């Protein structure tokens, strides 16, 4: 019998690739927007675009909170087998999103000029430009809000590919639309905004087609919605808001530090260099954001299932993935720092390029640690350890950056800011170690020491038997082992026989029908001796199959066929089935 954890590792690797692709594609779209505007509409156009960004960032930040909150809450309920509550959480999220979309659009449309003046449009040209762009882009705001949320929820609902298609189509159309507007239509900033709105709208339509499918988890469910459901989403998603907020504070504080240490002559060079580094931080960190989002979603699911081994496998694969991806990005950024900085160099300022390249190289040294730390922030969010998640997030994004930057700036000038990026990640990691050491009352060195689970979590290890099956030959020995285990733990003969029988019948069915596609699959089982009785949990990564529903449809069939499913459904006290993230999850109670 193999150990459990393979399914989670495989699920993580499969999901993270698509989440990163979607997140990076969206970021590329934003960056390309800025590049095209800068190239074709000049400094004035770029200034107007930059002025309006806080409005888009506000929508993105809000969407981040809703997306993080809904994905973790829904995943948790699904993991616990509570489909209706997951639907309720989804419905609450949709209500909030619609309300905020309408409100945001109304406010922007009605008070467009006032908003631009408030954001800093001091000249008539800047006011016209920013107001035009805002008018064009305001129709993209609902799409921005919904797309972030659907990115995570669709994966839970087994439709990950749709997200990638939608984001890629949206990004490509946005770039084409921007170029058409700049070179052919010449619609100025209004045209740029509308191109974004149209492309995001098409992306949203592609996502919405998911809800025309038959067997989906997330449908609207309005019954029994309470205020506490709204609060739960916001509280759970709060670390995303803390992250956005502290990142904004960080940028503001660093700008001030750079102006103070550079002096009047070099202030704009230092700020421009930091602008380059910050843009690259946003683009490259989207890779690690993808790792974090994947971790948070799966953590929520496994928290609902109370699966400690799965949590351990998740932490292990997340850290390894963050290290590998971080190392690749670090090498690329370090080696290509001059080239990257040069892309943003409009005025031929070699000084700015040199300073930005230096900053990028320092940032490259921090990326691996950033990935690990960000993963833990998201992991603790997935566990609903919100205080821990928010504290780590705020420390990482603000306190541990600004404090060293302030201290070091007295004698290291602009280098203080770059070094602070590394110091922040080191201090954050030490904080994580400190919390783990406090919980363990010793030195943490295994993955199990970093689980941060609220104890008691699930069934005690001595009352649980876990194993994985990948071949037909392993089935009967596993079935016999289950019988021995149940007998050892004081079960009746009947209970021991039935648990053993369920294992054999389930595995045989899954191998016969689920493994038939020729791909590699795994069945993971847990036999639990709980206070409520004996429980068998079975998870596999084959095509979706609900044995309970299947039997209902075939009740009138010849009783001499599909005997195994009939035996299980007939002898179990309760059976629950759930398909989430393309995994079959069956819970059988005796």
């Amino acid at each position, binding site marked *: 019998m193999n150990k459990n954890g393979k399914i989670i590792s495989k699920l993580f690797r499969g999901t993270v690739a698509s989440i990163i692709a979607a997140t990076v594609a969206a970021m590329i779209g934003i960056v390309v927007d800025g590049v095209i505007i800068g190239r074709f509409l000049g400094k004035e156009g770029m200034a107007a675009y930059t002025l309006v960004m806080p409005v888009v960032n506000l929508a993105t930040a809000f969407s981040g909170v809703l997306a993080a909150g809904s994905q973790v809450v829904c995943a948790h309920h699904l993991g616990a087998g509570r489909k209706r509550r997951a639907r309720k959480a989804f419905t609450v999220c949709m209500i909030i999103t619609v309300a905020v979309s309408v409100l945001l659009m109304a406010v922007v449309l009605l008070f467009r000029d006032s908003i631009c003046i408030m954001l800093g449009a001091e000249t008539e040209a800047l006011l016209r430009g920013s107001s035009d762009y805002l008018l064009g882009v305001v129709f993209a705001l609902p799409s921005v809000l919904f797309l972030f949320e659907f990115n995570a929820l669709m994966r839970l609902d087994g439709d990950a590919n749709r997200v990638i298609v939608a984001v890629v189509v949206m990004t490509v159309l946005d770039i084409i639309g921007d170029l058409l507007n700049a070179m052919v239509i010449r619609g100025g900033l209004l045209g740029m905004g509308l191109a974004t709105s149209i492309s995001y709208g098409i992306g949203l339509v592609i996502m919405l087609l998911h809800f025309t499918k038959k067997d989906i988890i997330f449908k609207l469910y309005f019954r029994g919605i309470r205020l506490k459901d709204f609060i739960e989403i916001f509280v759970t998603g709060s670390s995303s808001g803390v992250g956005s907020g502290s990142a904004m504070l960080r940028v503001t504080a660093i700008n001030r530090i750079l102006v103070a240490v550079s002096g009047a002559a070099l202030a704009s060079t230092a700020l421009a260099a930091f602008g380059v580094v910050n843009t690259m931080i946003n683009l490259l960190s989207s890779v690690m954001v993808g790792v974090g989002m994947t971790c948070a979603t799966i953590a929520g699911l496994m928290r609902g299932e109370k699966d400690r081994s799965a949590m351990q496998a998740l932490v292990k694969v997340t850290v390894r993935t963050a290290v590998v991806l971080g190392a690749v990005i670090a090498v690329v950024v370090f080696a290509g720092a001059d080239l990257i900085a040069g892309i943003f160099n409009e005025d031929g300022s070699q000084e700015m390029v040199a300073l930005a390249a230096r900053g990028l190289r320092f940032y490259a040294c921090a990326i691996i640690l950033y990935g690990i730390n960000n993963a833990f922030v998201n992991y603790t969010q997935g566990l609903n350890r919100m205080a821990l998640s928010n504290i780590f997030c705020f420390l990482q994004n603000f306190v541990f950056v600004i404090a060293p930057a302030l201290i070091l700036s007295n004698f290291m000038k602009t280098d203080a800011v770059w070094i602070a990026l590394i110091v922040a990640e080191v201090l954050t990691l030490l904080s994580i170690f400190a919390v783990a050491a406090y919980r363990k009352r010793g030195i943490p060195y295994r993955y199990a020491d970093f689980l941060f689970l609220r104890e008691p979590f699930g069934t005690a290890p001595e009352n649980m038997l876990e194993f994985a099956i990948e071949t037909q030959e392993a089935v009967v020995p596993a079935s016999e082992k289950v019988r021995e285990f149940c007998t050892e733990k004081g079960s009746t003969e009947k209970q021991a026989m039935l648990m053993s029988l369920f294992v*054999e*019948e389930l595995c045989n069915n899954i191998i016969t029908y689920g493994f038939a596609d020729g791909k590699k699959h795994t069945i993971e089982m847990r036999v639990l001796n709980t206070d409520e009785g004996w429980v068998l949990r079975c998870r596999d990564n084959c095509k979706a199959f609900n044995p309970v529903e299947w039997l209902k449809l075939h009740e009138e069939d010849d*009783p001499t066929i599909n*005997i*195994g499913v*009939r*035996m299980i459904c007939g002898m179990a006290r309760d059976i629950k089935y759930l398909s989430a993230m393309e995994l079959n999850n069956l819970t059988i109670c005796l």
Partner: protein
Amino acid sequence: MTVNKTKDGSKLYAQITGRIDTVTVNDAEKELMEGIDSVTELTLDFKELDYISSAGLRLLLLLQKRMNKQGSMKILNANETVTEIFEVTGFSDILTIV
């Protein structure tokens, strides 16, 4: 799994001990089918049988269909759990359980 057989003319009595599962079912089938052509009354004693899976039920079905053509088959001393399995699967209507 062991099968102890006693033949008396055209009557065959077989006591099955242990488990009939996916692995042992082939041996059980081989033992029970051997010389069955001349049997008109087949009795299976499940007193020492402590586990039967769907593979075992399919074997019983095969034997029952065979014996329907040439005689009869009955099952003795099935324990409570095995009897319950026969009932929930509908096999208690197909087999003769004493």
